[in-house]
Protein backbone atom coordinates (compact mmCIF):
# COMPACT_ATOMS: atom_id res chain seq x y z
CA UNK A 1 0.00 0.00 0.00
CA UNK A 2 1.28 3.43 -0.95
CA UNK A 3 0.91 6.21 1.62
CA UNK A 4 1.31 9.87 0.64
CA UNK A 5 1.43 12.95 2.89
CA UNK A 6 0.99 16.60 1.93
CA UNK A 7 1.62 20.07 3.38
CA UNK A 8 2.08 20.11 7.18
CA UNK A 9 1.10 16.44 7.46
CA UNK A 10 4.14 15.71 5.30
CA UNK A 11 6.30 18.06 7.39
CA UNK A 12 5.18 16.43 10.66
CA UNK A 13 5.64 12.83 9.50
CA UNK A 14 8.87 13.88 7.81
CA UNK A 15 7.89 11.63 4.90
CA UNK A 16 6.52 12.45 1.42
CA UNK A 17 5.47 8.94 0.56
CA UNK A 18 6.16 5.38 1.66
CA UNK A 19 5.23 1.82 0.75
CA UNK A 20 3.92 -0.35 3.57
CA UNK A 21 2.74 -3.91 3.89
CA UNK A 22 -0.78 -3.65 5.24
CA UNK A 23 -1.05 -5.62 8.52
CA UNK A 24 -3.89 -8.12 8.48
CA UNK A 25 -5.72 -6.40 11.37
CA UNK A 26 -5.98 -3.12 9.41
CA UNK A 27 -9.02 -2.93 7.13
CA UNK A 28 -10.22 0.71 7.42
CA UNK A 29 -8.62 4.15 7.24
CA UNK A 30 -9.19 4.65 10.99
CA UNK A 31 -7.36 1.42 11.78
CA UNK A 32 -4.53 2.49 9.47
CA UNK A 33 -4.19 5.80 11.36
CA UNK A 34 -4.13 4.00 14.72
CA UNK A 35 -1.46 1.65 13.43
CA UNK A 36 0.62 4.57 12.07
CA UNK A 37 0.39 6.49 15.38
CA UNK A 38 1.94 3.49 17.13
CA UNK A 39 4.88 3.58 14.74
CA UNK A 40 6.39 6.80 16.14
CA UNK A 41 6.13 10.31 17.52
CA UNK A 42 6.24 11.87 14.06
CA UNK A 43 2.98 10.09 13.14
CA UNK A 44 1.50 10.84 16.54
CA UNK A 45 2.18 14.54 15.98
CA UNK A 46 0.80 14.51 12.42
CA UNK A 47 -2.42 12.71 13.43
CA UNK A 48 -2.92 14.50 16.78
CA UNK A 49 -6.16 16.16 15.60
CA UNK A 50 -8.09 14.12 13.05
CA UNK A 51 -10.63 16.94 12.60
CA UNK A 52 -8.07 18.75 10.45
CA UNK A 53 -6.97 15.71 8.46
CA UNK A 54 -8.52 14.79 5.11
CA UNK A 55 -8.00 11.42 3.48
CA UNK A 56 -8.20 10.24 -0.13
CA UNK A 57 -8.14 6.61 -1.25
CA UNK A 58 -7.10 6.10 -4.85
CA UNK A 59 -7.41 9.86 -5.34
CA UNK A 60 -11.01 10.19 -4.16
CA UNK A 61 -12.04 11.86 -0.90
CA UNK A 62 -13.30 9.28 1.59
CA UNK A 63 -14.30 9.15 5.27
CA UNK A 64 -12.22 7.48 7.98
CA UNK A 65 -14.48 4.43 8.16
CA UNK A 66 -13.78 3.52 4.53
CA UNK A 67 -12.38 0.06 3.85
CA UNK A 68 -8.90 -0.19 2.39
CA UNK A 69 -6.93 -3.03 0.89
CA UNK A 70 -3.40 -3.78 -0.24
CA UNK A 71 -2.55 -1.96 -3.48
CA UNK A 72 -4.59 1.13 -2.56
CA UNK A 73 -3.04 4.60 -2.65
CA UNK A 74 -3.93 6.40 0.59
CA UNK A 75 -3.17 10.11 1.00
CA UNK A 76 -3.41 12.25 4.16
CA UNK A 77 -3.48 16.04 4.05
CA UNK A 78 -4.88 19.19 5.71
CA UNK A 79 -8.02 20.94 4.41
CA UNK A 80 -7.15 22.34 1.00
CA UNK A 81 -6.33 26.00 0.37
CA UNK A 82 -5.99 26.36 -3.39
CA UNK A 83 -7.85 28.61 -5.79
Amino acid at each position, binding site marked *: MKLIYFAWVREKTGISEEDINLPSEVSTVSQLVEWLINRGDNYQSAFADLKVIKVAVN*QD*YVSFDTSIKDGDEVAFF*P*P*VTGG
Partner: protein
Amino acid sequence: MIRVQQEDFDVGQEIKSLRGNDTGIGGICTFIGTVRELTSDKAISSMTLEHYPGMTEKALGDIEIEANARWSLSGSLIIHRYGKLEPGDQIVLVVTASPHREAAFEACQFLMDWLKTKAPFWKLEENKSGDHGWVDANSSDDVAANRWNEAKNKG
Protein backbone atom coordinates in the same frame (compact mmCIF):
# COMPACT_ATOMS: atom_id res chain seq x y z
CA MET B 1 -10.38 21.85 -20.49
CA ILE B 2 -8.09 21.71 -17.49
CA ARG B 3 -4.41 22.43 -17.02
CA VAL B 4 -2.20 22.11 -13.96
CA GLN B 5 1.08 23.86 -14.57
CA GLN B 6 4.00 25.81 -13.09
CA GLU B 7 4.12 28.35 -15.93
CA ASP B 8 2.15 31.58 -15.99
CA PHE B 9 -0.79 31.99 -18.40
CA ASP B 10 -1.95 34.74 -20.76
CA VAL B 11 -5.60 35.52 -19.96
CA GLY B 12 -6.35 37.27 -23.25
CA GLN B 13 -4.92 34.39 -25.26
CA GLU B 14 -6.78 31.76 -23.22
CA ILE B 15 -10.13 33.54 -23.66
CA LYS B 16 -9.50 33.88 -27.39
CA SER B 17 -8.69 30.16 -27.75
CA LEU B 18 -11.74 29.15 -25.75
CA ARG B 19 -14.10 31.34 -27.81
CA GLY B 20 -12.72 30.19 -31.16
CA ASN B 21 -15.26 31.09 -33.85
CA ASP B 22 -18.30 30.10 -31.82
CA THR B 23 -20.95 32.74 -32.60
CA GLY B 24 -23.39 30.98 -30.28
CA ILE B 25 -21.58 32.47 -27.29
CA GLY B 26 -23.24 35.51 -25.70
CA GLY B 27 -21.19 35.87 -22.53
CA ILE B 28 -17.80 34.89 -21.16
CA CYS B 29 -17.07 35.06 -17.44
CA THR B 30 -13.47 34.94 -16.25
CA PHE B 31 -11.98 34.78 -12.79
CA ILE B 32 -8.29 35.22 -12.03
CA GLY B 33 -6.95 34.52 -8.55
CA THR B 34 -3.73 36.35 -7.65
CA VAL B 35 -1.21 36.24 -4.80
CA ARG B 36 -1.88 39.00 -2.25
CA GLU B 37 1.08 40.50 -0.45
CA LEU B 38 -0.81 41.06 2.80
CA THR B 39 -2.90 38.07 3.77
CA SER B 40 -3.11 38.59 7.52
CA ASP B 41 -1.07 41.27 9.27
CA LYS B 42 2.34 40.68 7.74
CA ALA B 43 3.67 40.96 4.20
CA ILE B 44 4.66 37.73 2.47
CA SER B 45 7.64 37.50 0.14
CA SER B 46 6.51 34.36 -1.67
CA MET B 47 3.90 31.63 -1.69
CA THR B 48 4.52 28.01 -2.64
CA LEU B 49 1.64 25.91 -3.91
CA GLU B 50 1.92 22.18 -3.30
CA HIS B 51 -0.56 19.83 -4.93
CA TYR B 52 -1.38 16.12 -5.34
CA PRO B 53 -0.37 15.21 -8.90
CA GLY B 54 -2.85 12.77 -10.34
CA MET B 55 -5.68 13.54 -7.94
CA THR B 56 -5.59 17.21 -8.95
CA GLU B 57 -6.18 16.47 -12.64
CA LYS B 58 -8.84 13.87 -11.83
CA ALA B 59 -10.69 16.19 -9.45
CA LEU B 60 -10.53 19.20 -11.77
CA GLY B 61 -11.74 17.11 -14.69
CA ASP B 62 -14.66 15.76 -12.62
CA ILE B 63 -15.80 19.20 -11.49
CA GLU B 64 -15.63 20.56 -15.02
CA ILE B 65 -17.95 17.75 -16.12
CA GLU B 66 -20.28 18.62 -13.22
CA ALA B 67 -20.37 22.32 -14.22
CA ASN B 68 -21.18 21.37 -17.80
CA ALA B 69 -24.00 19.12 -16.57
CA ARG B 70 -25.49 21.89 -14.41
CA TRP B 71 -25.22 24.77 -16.87
CA SER B 72 -25.47 25.10 -20.63
CA LEU B 73 -21.88 26.02 -21.46
CA SER B 74 -20.26 26.56 -24.84
CA GLY B 75 -16.85 26.01 -23.28
CA SER B 76 -14.93 26.05 -20.02
CA LEU B 77 -11.32 26.24 -18.91
CA ILE B 78 -9.59 25.76 -15.57
CA ILE B 79 -5.87 26.50 -15.16
CA HIS B 80 -4.27 26.12 -11.73
CA ARG B 81 -0.60 26.80 -11.10
CA TYR B 82 1.68 25.18 -8.54
CA GLY B 83 5.22 25.91 -7.32
CA LYS B 84 6.72 29.13 -6.03
CA LEU B 85 4.85 32.37 -6.74
CA GLU B 86 5.31 35.99 -5.73
CA PRO B 87 2.86 38.73 -4.70
CA GLY B 88 0.90 39.84 -7.78
CA ASP B 89 1.41 36.53 -9.58
CA GLN B 90 -1.54 34.74 -11.12
CA ILE B 91 -2.57 31.49 -9.34
CA VAL B 92 -5.74 30.29 -11.00
CA LEU B 93 -7.87 31.01 -14.06
CA VAL B 94 -11.46 29.94 -14.66
CA VAL B 95 -13.22 30.85 -17.91
CA THR B 96 -16.81 29.89 -18.76
CA ALA B 97 -18.61 30.72 -22.00
CA SER B 98 -22.34 30.36 -22.56
CA PRO B 99 -25.15 31.66 -24.75
CA HIS B 100 -26.50 33.40 -21.60
CA ARG B 101 -24.70 35.50 -19.02
CA GLU B 102 -26.31 34.00 -15.92
CA ALA B 103 -25.01 30.53 -16.80
CA ALA B 104 -21.51 31.89 -17.44
CA PHE B 105 -21.45 33.79 -14.12
CA GLU B 106 -22.88 30.95 -12.04
CA ALA B 107 -20.70 28.22 -13.52
CA CYS B 108 -17.57 30.35 -13.03
CA GLN B 109 -18.45 31.06 -9.39
CA PHE B 110 -19.34 27.40 -8.80
CA LEU B 111 -15.96 26.26 -10.16
CA MET B 112 -14.07 28.80 -8.04
CA ASP B 113 -15.98 27.87 -4.86
CA TRP B 114 -15.25 24.25 -5.57
CA LEU B 115 -11.54 24.84 -6.27
CA LYS B 116 -11.23 26.64 -2.93
CA THR B 117 -12.67 23.75 -0.95
CA LYS B 118 -11.94 20.54 -2.85
CA ALA B 119 -8.99 20.88 -5.23
CA PRO B 120 -5.94 19.28 -3.53
CA PHE B 121 -3.69 22.35 -3.32
CA TRP B 122 -1.99 23.76 -0.24
CA LYS B 123 -0.49 27.21 0.13
CA LEU B 124 2.71 27.82 2.07
CA GLU B 125 3.46 31.48 2.79
CA GLU B 126 7.00 32.70 3.30
CA ASN B 127 7.85 36.15 4.69
CA LYS B 128 10.95 38.30 4.51
CA SER B 129 12.25 37.09 7.91
CA GLY B 130 12.43 33.59 6.47
CA ASP B 131 9.43 32.32 8.47
CA HIS B 132 6.94 30.12 6.72
CA GLY B 133 3.43 28.97 7.52
CA TRP B 134 0.71 26.89 5.91
CA VAL B 135 -2.40 28.85 5.06
CA ASP B 136 -5.43 27.72 7.08
CA ALA B 137 -8.62 26.74 5.31
CA ASN B 138 -11.24 29.46 5.46
CA SER B 139 -14.65 28.52 6.85
CA SER B 140 -16.31 31.13 4.63
CA ASP B 141 -15.10 29.10 1.64
CA ASP B 142 -17.00 26.07 2.96
CA VAL B 143 -20.13 28.18 3.30
CA ALA B 144 -19.71 29.44 -0.27
CA ALA B 145 -19.21 25.92 -1.62
CA ASN B 146 -22.13 24.46 0.33
CA ARG B 147 -24.71 26.73 -1.26
CA TRP B 148 -24.28 24.76 -4.50
CA ASN B 149 -25.28 21.55 -2.69
CA GLU B 150 -28.34 23.32 -1.33
CA ALA B 151 -29.16 24.59 -4.81
CA LYS B 152 -28.83 21.06 -6.14
CA ASN B 153 -31.01 19.52 -3.42
CA LYS B 154 -33.69 22.15 -3.94
CA GLY B 155 -33.67 21.66 -7.70
